[in-house]
Structure formats: structure tokens, C-alpha cells
């Protein structure tokens, strides 16, 4: 049997199994991305996230000793109140009823926005795409403003989030309707339709603010985002929603890789170009919609985190998605912790993410322009 296998149509049976192919630079790594295996990277991110949650829980107006946090969690989760013996009575309530819902919802929203942004960038083939590209944030803002101005309390505390969510979904439907033609969905059409609809809606929001009188402060405060007074039901709802959406995005992560080859190549490699991009767009938008409804508009997480993580994991979405979920959670949780525990006065979180994220994005952008990797 010959060792030399000619041609590209390699016959499986004659393929030498032990021959070592001369593959120049075989041990060379592509930049930073393969320095650690994917598993190790994810494990590290998960550890950082867990540590951030615990550290953040201890921080705040009432300082809870770090060592008490795991005990309180264990006491509640295992149903053994004797574990909290010896600490101040207020601690379990502060940790479990006040801080954890806020902390977990910040983490979940951060992860959700980051995976949604990664998906948008992959589907629209545009590095500047983010979860709000299709006007989801404008729709949510319009819905929320409407509920506030009309003073709608039909559904109690949930009226504003529900109106925000409905606004986001209706906007998404309108944008997809405007952008679709006989050839399916093109990314340019989607981006343009998103911009047009968002422009109309922001005019509507301006009008609502104008007629809102003293309610205008409530609208402005909502628009800038906050995790204050989140409850366990908010946590449960967003967790379910983000988990379902994340599952779909990860399931189609490999198809998302193929989309970057262009639609004809992707289709010839088995991607259903009529169904898959639309399904992914709707999924990513719905993740963004529920995040916005819960927390208001928080910018830059969905834009920044995928860029940072692509430097770490490479562009393969099967690695990128989990990294974005964890890193988005870490980043937004730190931002919220700074606001809640470190600053003398609480400021809206959307303002902080934009203030820090904007310049940071400029830096990454500049570095990529000058051909350097990393951040």
C-alpha cells in the first residue's frame, strides 16, 4: 500500500493513519485564542462569575461579612436555619430578599444582552450590530412610556414591563415585515428598516415626554435602566426566557458560523437560509426584549462583550456564545455593584455602561484598526 495519497478525493481506506503530515507551524497558536483550552476558559469565567456574585452580595450599605454569605445561601437552600446562628438577624433578609434578586437579574440580563449581541453580529454580518439594531429598545421604550403617560395600572406592577415587551415585539414584527422581500431577509434591509422604525418611535417617545408633565421624570428614569427593587419573580422570568433563547442560539451556533461565508456558501453547506436566520433573529430579539422590559435600556453590553470575547475564543460561535453569557453576566453585575455599593449616589446603570463602555469600545476599535489583537 502506498503512503502517498494523491488528490483531494482521498479514499478513506488508503489514508495513512500514522503518517505525520508536515504542517508548518503546527504548534503555533492563532494569537491568544488557543492559549487556554475552551473548557478551562469557561471554567475560569464561571468561577469569576460565582465569586462576583458572592462578593457583590456582601457589598452594600449594610456590610455583610464575606464568610456569612455562603452560610446564608446554604441555610436557605438546604432549609437549615441553624446555619445562620450567631450573625445579625437582618443579614439573611438583606442577602436573600433584597440583594440576590437584584444581583441575579443584573447577571442574567448581562448574559442575555451579550449572547443576543453576538447573535446579531453573526446574523447581520456587521460588527456594529447589537441587540437593539432592529429597534427593540425603541419599541420597548415607547411601550413603557405609553404605559407611564396613560397611567396604566391594569396589571399592577407588571404594567410597564408588559407594555415595554409588547412594544418591543410589535416593533420587531414591523421591522421584519418591512425588510423581507422575495429573496428572504438581507442584512442591509434589516438594518435600514430598524433605523427607520427606531427613528419614528423616538419621535413618538419625545412626544410622550412632552405631554407627560410631572411623569417625565419617571419615563427618563426608566429609559436609563435600573435593577433597583427587582424581585424573585423577575429573576425567574428572565432566567427562563434567557435560558430558552440561549439554548436555541447554541443549538444553531454552527449554522451561525456558516453564515459568515455568505448566504450561497452557507446554503450549500446545509443551512436553511429561509428559516434559520429568521429564527435566530427572532430569538435574539426576544432575549433583548425581555431584558429591556425588566431593566430598561442598557447599552454597550451587547456590543462590547462579543468583541472582547471574540479576542479570547475566536469567532467560532460554539465557543463564543458560552463565553459571552458568562462575561456579560460578570460585566453587568460589576457595573450594577459599583452603582449600588461603591458610588455615594445611585446613578442609572445605562448611563454607567455607556460612560465606561463607549471609551472602551473606542479603544478596542482603535486597536483593531491598527492591526493588533487583544484588548
Amino acid at each position, binding site marked *: 500500500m502506498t503512503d502517498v*495519497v*494523491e*488528490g*483531494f*478525493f*482521498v*479514499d*478513506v481506506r488508503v*489514508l495513512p*493513519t500514522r503518517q505525520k*503530515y508536515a*504542517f*508548518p*507551524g503546527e504548534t*503555533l*497558536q*492563532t494569537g491568544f485564542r488557543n492559549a487556554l483550552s475552551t473548557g478551562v476558559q469557561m471554567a475560569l469565567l464561571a468561577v469569576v462569575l460565582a465569586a462576583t456574585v458572592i462578593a457583590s452580595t456582601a457589598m452594600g450599605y449594610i456590610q455583610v461579612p464575606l464568610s456569612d454569605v455562603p452560610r446564608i445561601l446554604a441555610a436557605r437552600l438546604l432549609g437549615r436555619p441553624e446555619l445562620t446562628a450567631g450573625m445579625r438577624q437582618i443579614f439573611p433578609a438583606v442577602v436573600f430578599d433584597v440583594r440576590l434578586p437584584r444581583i441575579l437579574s443584573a447577571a442574567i440580563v448581562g448574559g442575555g444582552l451579550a449572547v443576543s449581541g453576538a447573535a446579531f453580529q*453573526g446574523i447581520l*454580518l456587521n460588527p456594529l450590530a447589537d441587540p437593539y439594531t432592529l429597534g427593540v429598545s425603541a419599541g420597548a421604550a415607547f411601550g413603557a412610556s405609553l404605559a407611564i403617560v396613560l397611567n396604566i395600572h391594569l396589571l399592577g406592577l407588571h404594567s410597564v414591563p408588559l407594555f415595554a415587551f409588547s412594544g418591543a415585539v410589535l416593533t420587531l414584527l414591523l421591522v421584519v415585515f418591512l425588510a423581507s422581500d*422575495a429573496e428572504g431577509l438581507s442584512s442591509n434591509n434589516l438594518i435600514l428598516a430598524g433605523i427607520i422604525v427606531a427613528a419614528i418611535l423616538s419621535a413618538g417617545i419625545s412626544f410622550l415626554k412632552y405631554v407627560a408633565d410631572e411623569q417625565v421624570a419617571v419615563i427618563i428614569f426608566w429609559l436609563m435602566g435600573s435593577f433597583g427593587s427587582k424581585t424573585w419573580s423577575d429573576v425567574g422570568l428572565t432566567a427562563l426566557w434567557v435560558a430558552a433563547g440561549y439554548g436555541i442560539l447554541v*443549538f444553531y451556533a*454552527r449554522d451561525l*458560523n*456558516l453564515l*459568515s*461565508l*455568505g448566504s*450561497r*456558501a452557507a*446554503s*450549500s*453547506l*446545509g*443551512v*436553511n437560509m429561509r428559516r434559520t436566520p429568521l429564527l435566530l433573529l427572532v430569538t435574539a430579539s426576544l432575549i433583548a426584549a425581555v431584558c429591556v422590559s425588566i431593566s430598561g435600556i442598557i447599552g454597550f453590553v451587547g456590543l462590547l462583550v462579543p468583541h472582547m470575547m*471574540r479576542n479570547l475564543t*475566536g*469567532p*467560532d460561535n*460554539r465557543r463564543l456564545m458560552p463565553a459571552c453569557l458568562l462575561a456579560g453576566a460578570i460585566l453587568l453585575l460589576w457595573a450594577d455593584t459599583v452603582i449600588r455599593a461603591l458610588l455615594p449616589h445611585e446613578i442609572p446603570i445605562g448611563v454607567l455602561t455607556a460612560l465606561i463602555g463607549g471609551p472602551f469600545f473606542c479603544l478596542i476599535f482603535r486597536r483593531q484598526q491598527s492591526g493588533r489583537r487583544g484588548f
Partner: protein
Amino acid sequence: MGFSLAHVDFAYQKRPVFNDLSLVMEPGRFYGLIGPNGCGKTTLLDLLCGLRQPDRGSIRFRGRDLRAFSKKELARQVALVPQDFFINFPFSAEEVVMMGRYPRLPRFAAPSAFDRKFVKRIMSDTDTVNFHDRMVTALSGGERQRVVFARALAQDTPVLVLDEATSNLDIAHSLALLDLAARGVYDAGKTVIASFQDINLAAAFCSHLVLMQPGRIVAQGPTDKILTAERIERVFGVAAKVYFDAYANARQVVFKAPRHKIQEAEPSKEY
């Protein structure tokens, strides 16, 4: 049985491209599509790949209606090297070639040792091995086109469709890649269907030619029979001479000297 198109109509929105088009393509042949710009070469290739559906008529592949194939099945039968080879994200060249193996791999599976070996083999055949770990976004146009070509070869399908797949390559790489494709046809009985701008390149490699004019097929058959001066003149509207060239071992076309050729008196230099 390869492809058979029967009475196919196709239109983009209201602009008709094909009207009652019929064509049979047998396996084990190297087909070349030639014709002027906008005559529907790419559209025909899209129809064969199942990327577009005919408005009327039927396309059968291996005796089955093409629409009866699932996307995944088709991805294991037909590989395409598209005209457009832009890649949007900084995948490494090797990752892109490995994407050709996706249709054979379960969704979350890592490539097997065999897949890796296969990809390496193809990358050395296509002369892309030197930059296997470079980002495709940092490659030159010709290098990236070779990576895309290698990706389609990695799909290892019975049918390979090339849409002007060597448009950006230098002559050495054009010959080498088309030779790889031809070797698959003559050694393994595969089918290659390729569109060309360069008639002589087509004549050198294709066993059969399909000569097209906007919306219709003018002639098709063995290259030696199809390639004549009067057909070239009819289809492209340029005066040409066709002859058998022993050095190229193929029929070749030369075109009448342009009317306004600038004659330089300077002697040529060799560096």
C-alpha cells in the same frame, strides 16, 4: 444519472431568466459553462445546487426531484465554490476549510482524527497549508479564494460546482486547482460543473461544454465538437480562430488583434 433539467422556467421577480430550459448532465464528466456576462450561468448553477427553485419544470438529481433532498443530504452531494469569497469574521484558514466537514459531523461533535487529516491533506493539495493558522480576513484575495476552494473540496461530495472559482488566482494556482478537480473526475468518477470567463482554461479542462446566451443554451456536448469559431462569434460577437493546440493538448481560441494596439518601439527588459 446526474442532473436532468426538464422545461425549466425561472424568473427573478418579474425578470425572466430561463424559459423552457432542458439539459442533461451525466456523472463522471467535467462540464464547463461559458457565455457572456448576465447570461444566467450563476443562476443555472444556483438551480443545480438547490439554492433556488424553478418556477416551472423539474430538476432531477440521481433520478430524484432535487426538492426531495433535505438541505443536509444535498450538502453531502453537491459542494459549491461561490463567486463571492468574502468572509466576515476572523476565522483561521483551517477553521474555514474544516467547515466543509460540518455536513458530515453531528452538530456538537469535534472533528475526528480522520477529519483533521483530510483537511490537512486538502490544504497541502491546494497550497493553503502555509497560512493554515492565519486569519482569513488578513489573507489576500487569491489566498482567500484558495481557502474557499479547499473548503468545498473538504466537503468531499460526488458533485463539485465551481462558479468562476479561479477568477482571482494566478495561472499556476488556477491550473493546479482545476487539475485537482479534474483528477476527481477522471480517477473517482465525480462530476464537476464549472462556469468560466476564460474559454481556453475551460477548453483545457472540460470534457463537455455548455454554451449559453442570455436565457438559453446555444449548444452543448463534447468540448471538441462544441468549440468552433463561428459559435464563439455568434455567442460573444467577437471574431475568433479555433484550432487544436498540441502544446496545450486541447482546442484553443485566439481572438483577432485589437484595432488600436499600441506598438512600443522600446526593447523589452528582463530582470
